[in-house]
């Protein structure tokens, strides 16, 4: 049976249009994984030398074990945000002669092969090897230690799914988890209960008396059993497989009427953003865009680099523009056929999205005014970037949308979701930020700050003045690719 499942998984992966169309993206992800792995291996070796330098004559295994509490906590946090239980389309299997327990065991077993579970090993094993190469006396202790790391990794893996299962039913799934994690950290930090000691001593005890390894093994087994029970309950159509019906959140959007003939589209776009997971997370990500400058400006080194101002300005005022704009018109791919058979003016449809993007740029700029704290020149640079975003980037990104041929499933989340992303999105996304940055950087260097600012603003204003003409040109592009878009959007992604 497992053989059949593996076969199905294989086909599902390689036959998905997503894989076939996005080979380049997959290669990129593989490189990223290799990079992380190399980073961890080096980290493992480096950890030894680092400890040797700082605390030369102490038991390095004991020191590392002491800090394992932080690793467990961090690992859980990381997994909570990143790792999801692997999905398997179980519905067609339910009526077939397959035991439910086989399905559950398979899903859980599959989760054990997650990349997240291998990463710690890339750190732990090089560390252990370096340790023994430098003549650590107790080889069994090292072996036991690696073994413990493996067990803890898998325990975190299964514990995470339990946490997810329970927090998914809460209205604010993040909050309790964060509070508990912060609480544990706090208890430890203020030495009310020292988890670092408990776990550190525990690990050391096991490395010295291998028989104690049974305890973490027991915990792992228990966590697996709990997961097994939880999943088994869910394998019924009326439990989790059935999609949840949510109550409508209706809000009064009559204020959009002031935008005249594009009001129906504005209402549609606002509901689109607010009522779908993927768009909603895009909207929430705006906060990150807004705070992006805080990664750089507090450090004098970056504050001196004037060309960075333009980049951060474009990025933080245009975050929504870029993230939302690059998927026009794929956001509407689900019902594109209907829109095309309706009596709509394409130009109105696009203008509604344009106004939405412009509004976001203005709002982001206004919210970003406090950046003036880091210098008024930064604020001016942001202002110029905002004008450039409105006048140039907004049009460029909508023009790029006419090359969009990828359907988007609105119900999937946004982080690490590459659905709908194609080469065009990358090609367009990069110049949106790089061109103004390079332009600003060069002019600033050659002719001074004022000229560089003036150029960005002028370009933006030219775009705004030519708005009508540009929109006409863009609309025509969309009309020309109408049939291709309809055909592409009717395919399942």
């Amino acid at each position, binding site marked *: 049976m497992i053989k059949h499942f593996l076969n199905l998984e294989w086909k599902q992966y390689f036959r998905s249009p997503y894989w076939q169309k996005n080979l380049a993206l997959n290669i990129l992800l593989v490189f990223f994984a290799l990079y992380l792995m190399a980073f961890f291996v080096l980290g493992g070796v480096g950890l030894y030398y680092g400890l040797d330098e700082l605390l030369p004559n102490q038991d390095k295994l004991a020191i590392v074990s002491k800090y394992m509490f932080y690793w467990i906590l961090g690992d859980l946090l990381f997994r909570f945000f990143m790792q999801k239980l692997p999905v398997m389309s179980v519905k067609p299997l339910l009526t077939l002669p397959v035991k439910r327990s086989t399905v559950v065991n398979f899903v859980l077993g599959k989760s054990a092969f997650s990349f997240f579970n291998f990463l710690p090993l890339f750190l732990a094993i090089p560390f252990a090897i370096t340790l023994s190469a430098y003549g650590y006396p107790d080889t069994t202790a090292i072996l036991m230690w690696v073994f413990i790391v493996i067990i803890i990794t898998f325990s975190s893996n299964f514990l995470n799914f339990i946490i997810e299962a329970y927090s998914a039913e809460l209205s604010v799934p993040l909050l309790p988890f964060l509070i508990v994690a912060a609480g544990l950290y706090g208890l430890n930090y203020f030495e009310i209960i020292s988890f670092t000691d408990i776990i550190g001593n525990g690990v050391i005890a096991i490395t010295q008396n291998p028989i104690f390894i049974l305890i973490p093994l027991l915990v792992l087994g228990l966590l697996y059993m709990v997961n097994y029970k939880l999943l088994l309950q869910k394998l019924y159509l009326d439990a989790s497989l059935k999609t949840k*019906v949510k109550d409508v959140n209706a809000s009064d959007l009559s204020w959009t009427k002031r935008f005249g003939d594009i009001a*129906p589209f504005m*209402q549609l776009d606002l509901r689109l953003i607010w009522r*779908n997971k993927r768009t909603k997370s895009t909207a929430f990500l705006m906060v990150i865009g807004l705070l992006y400058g805080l990664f750089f400006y507090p450090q004098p080194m970056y504050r001196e680099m004037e060309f960075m101002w333009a980049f951060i300005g474009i990025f933080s005022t245009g975050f929504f523009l870029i993230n939302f704009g690059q998927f026009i018109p794929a956001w509407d791919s*689900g019902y594109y056929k209907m829109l*095309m*058979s309706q009596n709509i003016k394409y130009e109105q449809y696009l203008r509604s999205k344009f106004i939405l993007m412009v509004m976001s740029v203005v709002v982001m700029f206004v919210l970003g005014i406090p950046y003036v704290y880091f210098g008024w020149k930064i604020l001016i640079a942001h202002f110029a970037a905002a004008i450039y975003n409105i006048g140039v980037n907004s049009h460029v990104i909508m023009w790029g949308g006419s090359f969009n041929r990828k359907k988007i499933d609105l119900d999937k989340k946004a982080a690490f979701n590459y659905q709908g992303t194609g080469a065009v999105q990358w090609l367009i996304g990069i110049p949106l930020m790089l061109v103004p940055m390079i332009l600003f950087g060069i002019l600033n260097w050659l002719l001074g700050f004022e000229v560089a600012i003036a150029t960005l603003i002028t370009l933006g204003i030219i775009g705004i003045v030519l708005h009508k003409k540009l929109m006409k040109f863009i609309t025509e592009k969309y009309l020309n690719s109408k049939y291709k878009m*309809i055909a592409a959007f009717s395919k399942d992604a």
Partner: protein
Amino acid sequence: MIQTTDISKSYNGIQVLKIDELHIPKGQSFGLVGNNGAGKTTYFSLLLDLINPTTGSITSNDIVVSNSEDWKPFTSAFIDETFLIGYLTPEEYFYFIGDLRGQNKADVDALTSQFEDFFNGEILGKKKYLRDLSKGNQKKAGIVAALIGNPEVIILDEPFANLDPTTQIRLKQILKDLAEKQGVTVLVSSHDLLHVTDVCERIVVLEKGEVVKDLETNPTTLRELEAHFAKSAISSSEEEE
């Protein structure tokens, strides 16, 4: 009203539709039947300019549909559930379509209130998104949305599928009224021979993309259609032997 001339559609050299001449006069209730892959949906998609014809053209009210968009104000359609916007409630969807077709909220409300029986209390005022409705209820919402704005041509692809028996009977009455009393040109396709013969004055049978029968509905039509499709079932089972 709708004139089809020499139209054909091929994908990679394989012809899926070829109609030399087909005229549908105003106010006719027109039924399209045929097995899977016969070209029914392809024909409707061509009518709505959702796909580009390989040759030929379709004119609706003397407007070539692939050249101008002026046919859109008097044409409406419900082809499948991708015509619905999943994250809207039925009411919001009706108002949206109404906005596009120049109808205000009151107009839309007046229209939808006529369909309370048809909706069976499961569509309006339920505070549910369209994506969360059952297939049958989605279909009901889509069909009624196609009636908004007094269209002169209504195109419905398989409107009877997924509907419960009561609703099927109600829908038949609605479609008949539209053609007979309001002079609307109604185009439906169906696999249910009984329903099409009940609703449509004229029935065209497509087979492998070509028109093989063009019948004026009369009391013997149903038997004739059944005989036609039974014949191809028998001949194909003979081929297998």
